């Protein structure tokens, strides 16, 4: 049995994607930059994919830069904007405390090159207050770029992008949004959001890993970060991943067709899982605003249970979930998102993220609702036993420096 509830980490390939990738890899091996027929066939495949992705976000195809994923798109947006605005006198960047590491780390790198970075807080529900952005914009002499994610990957909360973008523009700043967790799940329109740049990632909605895009408003001068040839209108050099991007295009078409259904069906399952766990397990809490989030995500704390252990126990039974961002390697600090929301470390250590997709069935939800209460009960009883035995005998622990023995 394998029940997969970690769609925010990645999604399985959408129908037709694998076939498209293989077909293009085999039958259309040309380089899209070549003038001859094989090259032009590859270019045609690329154009189709680009158009399909553009339609998914209500954009013009020629304004899309196809990249190797969401992280690359974020890097291009932030670094490209910073480089373009370096001599503008507006060397100030505003972002939030709940961004994905791809944005946070890149902003930190911009600090190292002399830009000031303001990180807006979020409230307990995980949402940025437009008033805070307004204050940050007003208090600083000039802001070059504002970057706020459309939806948070750990708790799923949606940010008021249109309002935030308007504020940024009122102060002459560019606005970028990392929409990696919304594109393919909810309707996304660059026009309605009013942003200047938008990042998306293919594998989050069933495309191949290693594909993504950055939409850039026409006229915005962005400096390429991967330099070389003139692909992607000189904004991202390198021979394109034609086969992979073909898969991205198929996934985008599929996602767009299913958006309406996704919103209702997936949300219903997420809500049923959430209700089932909150009602079936005492001491559970949902983290993040429930009325303003993507339809597929539920972040829940289980009092008195090490989330890491519960995750392992679930995996041993074939149920795949997450403790938050999948991206940390080498360290496990409490989630910076939950911390930013004002939740104590103990809450962060006991939280699991359930994120489902179009393929998640009612039977899957039932199985999880059926299993978790017993597991949680067992883990709670075990840790109570350990605690009541008075903890372990501390072997040879001594008084501190200079203390009497």
């Amino acid at each position, binding site marked *: 049995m394998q029940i997969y509830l970690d769609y925010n980490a990645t999604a399985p390939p959408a129908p037709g994607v694998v076939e498209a990738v293989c077909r293009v890899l085999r039958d259309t091996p040309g380089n899209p930059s070549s003038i001859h027929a094989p090259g032009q066939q590859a270019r045609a495949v690329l154009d189709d994919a680009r158009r399909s992705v553009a339609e998914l976000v209500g954009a013009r195809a020629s304004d899309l830069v196809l990249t190797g994923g969401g992280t690359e798109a974020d890097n291009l947006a932030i670094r490209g904007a910073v480089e373009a605005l370096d001599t503008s006198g507006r060397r100030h960047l505003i972002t939030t405390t709940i961004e994905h590491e791809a944005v946070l780390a890149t902003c930190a790198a911009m600090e190292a090159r002399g830009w000031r970075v303001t990180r807006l807080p979020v409230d307990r529900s995980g949402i940025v207050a437009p008033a805070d952005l307004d204050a940050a914009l007003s208090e600083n002499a000039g802001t070059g770029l504002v970057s706020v994610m459309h939806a948070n990957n750990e708790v799923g909360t949606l940010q008021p992008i249109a309002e935030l973008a308007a504020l940024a523009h009122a102060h002459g700043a560019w606005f970028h949004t990392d929409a990696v967790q919304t594109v393919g799940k909810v309707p996304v329109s660059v026009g309605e959001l009013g942003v200047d740049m938008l990042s998306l990632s293919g594998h989050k909605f069933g495309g191949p890993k290693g594909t993504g895009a950055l939409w850039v408003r026409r006229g915005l001068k962005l400096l390429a970060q991967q330099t070389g040839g003139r692909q992607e209108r000189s904004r991202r050099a390198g021979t394109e991943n034609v086969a992979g991007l073909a898969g991205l295009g198929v996934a985008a078409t599929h996602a767009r067709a299913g958006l309406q259904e996704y919103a209702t069906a997936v949300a219903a399952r997420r809500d049923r899982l959430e209700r089932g766990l909150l009602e079936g397990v005492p001491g559970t809490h949902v983290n993040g605003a429930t009325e303003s989030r993507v339809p597929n995500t539920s972040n829940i704390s289980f009092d008195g249970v090490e989330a890491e252990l519960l995750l392992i126990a679930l995996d041993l039974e074939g149920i795949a979930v997450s403790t938050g961002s999948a991206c940390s390697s080498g360290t496990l600090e409490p989630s910076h998102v939950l911390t930013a929301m004002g939740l104590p470390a103990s809450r962060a250590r006991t939280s699991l993220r359930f994120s489902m997709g179009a393929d998640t069935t009612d039977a899957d939800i039932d199985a999880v609702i059926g299993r978790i209460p017993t597991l949680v009960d067992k883990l709670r009883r075990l840790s109570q036993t350990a605690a009541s035995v008075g903890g*372990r005998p501390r072997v*040879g622990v001594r*008084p501190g420096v200079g203390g009497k023995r």
Partner: protein
Amino acid sequence: MTRVVVAMSGGVDSSVAAALMVEEGYDVVGLSMQLYDQRETEDGAPKFGSCCSLDDLHDAKRVARHLGFPHYIVNFEREFKATVVDNFVSEYSAGRTPIPCVHCNADLKFSTLAERAAGLDASVVATGHYARVVFDEEHRRYRLQRGLDPAKDQSYFLFTLTQDQLAHARFPVGHLNKTEVRAHAERLGLSVADKPDSHEICFVPDGNTARFVERHAPQAPARGEIVDAEGQVLGEHRGVHHFTVGQRKGLGLSTGSPLYVLKLEPVGERVVVGAREALGSHELTATGVNWISGQAPDGPMRVTARIRHRHQDAPATVVATGDGTAHLRFDDPQMAITPGQAVVFYDAADAANVMGGGWIDSR
């Protein structure tokens, strides 16, 4: 199938231990403890140690994948700092020479990790230690024994194990010697078959324990006097944590004959040195004593005792003096009995059996 957890360091011993449990038909789950932040760098060099680094964790995963059982990394950074690192730093600052491996075994592997194992329905934690547990039918209790390979025996580091912990521990390689273990690894095609053993303290990869202590206890006094047994000042030192009993190098003294550290006095920040002959001693007091049987013996007991890992255990008489303490007298004087180290007693009648052990107190 009975489920067991194997604590995997990524080294060949714990990898083979896991393999042997699989071959015995157990439902194995491999757990590797992440003990320190792998990202932090000090002086540009990675902070992680010589064991349980990211590469080691990956080695463990690879072995698990090869042998076909699930493997997870559990984050024990907080617990490691609280039970192993903090103790290490405070002991050195107090003029004692600690053994962090004992605390890691006592407080992490056979405690916290065992609790995690119970949460996963595993009643046993197996490790790659060279030691043995046997059940004594006659006395209805567990015995802890040395590993069969005298060069690799790690029973010294396991003296704190209680009957309950022993009941839930397995040491699959304890009855093998190192050559046999590597042969198993070759036979199984394990990627770690040729991996060298780690010898340093795992979280101090460059061996510079003094600098580690200073980094973590910057408030520790940094200056003091080196004196002889009569109290005459011979020189200066930069903190007692730089020294251990029996040490000859690093004193910075130029005298006729070689001088050795006899004693550390952290309260006065003094290092007492003397001739080699003065290093010998018959007696020690041990605190925090654990008796493997679960009961302190009545009256004096003949044992052979070891005062450090690399020490040939020597005949002695030990008396439990109440409240977790014991007094031990060696037949012959032993060199450099070091406060903070462990004294481990082996059965005089059967040298394989560990009777117990404790922490050598400052005299």
